[in-house]
């Protein structure tokens, strides 16, 4: 390592340790007894594996885990399909009102989610009453409203815009339509941003709590976040169980990131999205 890089590396390592501290504590606390938590121990005196069993059983993690996997996966697939179709014309076509449309889409990023919660519930309730599909207490209400969002469209649009025009020229010579070009050329070239978007969307879906509580009344389709809420007591500490539950819930996210971390970094570089 060059000497001039040492301070930079030292700062990066230090920042990394600071960022990891909450996760390290979460993992440590998940194995602690109540007494360890009370006395602010850094490491458990005796490893309490049963915290995980207790959390799993008390919070119905089996059912909620399955629900979260299905809901998050469906949302990701939906976002890939709809947002690719929306981002492509914004990136590569010219039509009247394109810029205004793009600005309108982006402007929705300014609206806080809490403002749209009740109107969205009204829409979902209307659909529940007027369509043959059950929406309340069912997977459609937990997935379809989130199968498109402005950030995903913007993210993909940035990447699609930098694909060289020569690819389209070559595809057009072969008789390809825009849709065929999108499916056969653009999407395969966009693995990195699509995987990144998939991971971010998966995380968002995985962590959602307010919406699932609004549109479900029974455990049948509730996600893991509701299970974690079950571990929060009204008047006292159960941190050891809460941290065990939190650790369980974070494992799929970590696993997915481990699989796609190279593509994640590549896509950040290619699209110019930072932070």
């Amino acid at each position, binding site marked *: 390592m060059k000497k001039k890089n040492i301070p930079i590396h030292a700062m990066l390592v230090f920042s990394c340790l600071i960022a990891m501290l909450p996760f390290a504590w979460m993992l440590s606390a998940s194995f602690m007894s109540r007494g360890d938590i*009370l006395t*602010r121990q850094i490491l458990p005196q005796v490893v309490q594996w049963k915290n995980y069993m207790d959390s799993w059983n008390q919070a119905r993690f089996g059912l909620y885990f399955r629900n979260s996997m299905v809901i998050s996966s469906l949302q990701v697939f939906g976002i890939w399909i709809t947002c690719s179709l929306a981002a492509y014309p914004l990136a590569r076509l010219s039509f009247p009102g394109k810029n205004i449309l793009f600005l309108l889409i982006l402007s929705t990023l300014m609206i806080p989610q809490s403002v749209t919660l009740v109107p969205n519930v009204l829409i979902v309730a209307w659909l529940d009453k007027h369509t043959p599909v059950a929406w309340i207490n069912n997977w459609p209400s937990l997935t379809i409203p989130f199968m498109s969002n402005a950030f995903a469209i913007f993210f993909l649009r940035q990447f699609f815009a930098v694909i060289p025009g020569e690819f389209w020229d070559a595809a057009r010579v072969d008789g390809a339509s825009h849709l065929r070009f999108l499916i056969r050329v653009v999407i395969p070239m966009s693995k990195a941003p699509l995987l990144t978007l998939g991971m971010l969307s998966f995380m968002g879906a995985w962590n959602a709590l307010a919406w699932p509580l609004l549109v479900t009344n029974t455990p049948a389709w509730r996600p893991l976040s509701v299970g974690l809420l079950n571990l929060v*007591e009204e008047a006292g*500490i159960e941190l050891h169980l809460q941290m065990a539950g939190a650790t369980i819930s974070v494992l799929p996210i970590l696993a997915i990131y481990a699989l796609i971390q190279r593509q994640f970094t590549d896509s950040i570089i290619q699209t110019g999205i930072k932070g």
Partner: protein
Amino acid sequence: MNIRSCFSLFMLLASRTSATDSLERVDPSGQQIRFWHQHTRERKDALEALIRKFNETNPHKIEISAEYAGQYSDIYNKMIAGLRTGDVAHLIVAYQNQAVTYSMASGLVDLQPYVDSDKWGLTQEEKDDYFPAFYEQDMAHGIRLGFPPNRSMEVLYYNVDWLKELGFDTPPRTWEQFREMVCAAKGKPFSKSLLPGASIGYQLSIDTSRFAAMVFSRGGSLANKDNSAYTLNTPEARETLEFLQNLFKEGCAKQVAERYGDQADFGAGSLLFSIASSSGLPFYKLVVDHGAQFQWDVAALPQKGETPIQNIYGASLSIPKTTPQQQLAAWLFIRWFTSPAQQAQWAQSSNYFPVRKSVALQMEDYFEKNIAYKHAFDLLQYGTFEPLMAGYDLVRDLIEQTMASVVDGKPAVPALQKLEKEANAILSDYY
């Protein structure tokens, strides 16, 4: 009383009479009732056991289905959305200020006709059996917005052994004694403390109910008699905040740094006093048993007068407007749930307080095994409550901001003047 008041009273009585007559003819048989609640784990299990018992034994074949709907704020969001969509439960848990909001949207049923009904209601003897403060807490301008299934109270948790080491035999009766004891604790950590370096007399968690409890203990209140205006810039409120500010300045108290941090430190023997909800009693027992293992107890907050004045609170059961049959069925569950046998079972499972005085007779064994609970139970007769006013949840946020700013060093009087003005501005938005 002027003509307008007479007319209002007449209309209220007329509507009540009409409502009561028609209520007697409603048949609740076979109704399926959805109940949104916030209980988890053991309390959820205990509630579901009671609901199964009701479903199996009630003569009308009413079936209650309990649905965990998140925390109180989540239930509130569901209700706000549900009042627009028409998809609401038949029975919900709601704090009084939340119930006022639902009522302003014409979303709740007035329960007083049910309480007074000859056929479905409570006898006078039953009404007298309720603790007065519990029974009155859900009344707003003559309308009953909810009915109490249980209650909790602000109490003073104290480390008996540590107090003895400091030279005191009894918990503080006055705020001056409280100050003396917490400052003594600063200089002499508890001998069994697991965190002696972190010992302190009192940790304040910024909470409006804590503030209210301290103001009540000084003979004050948060609103005027008819709840038409907040009275937050009072001598009692000023005394409360300045007392806390001085404790902080003297280094005898500090703010709680993390949720339930005071509970954890109490259990570790590094905190002499904690002022918190009585519903935390089982958790305090747990933290002490897993912590420094010392003798502890609860007492009334320090008081100005001879008779304690204690802040009691808790969410009530409210009935959204649905059909007369469903509303009556929901009420019959409430009536059953608040009967002595069920209250005794619920209180022992949940560690909340029962709402009826006669339940004490069925809890003698429980009292013997839970002395601290018994001591707190004995204080219920001195209960009073925070005001039932629209927008109170927003005012609670303002009170907490004011508490935090004053204990941080800002002068109390201008802070309370501003608070009172802003609180009444919020109130005027609703009326």
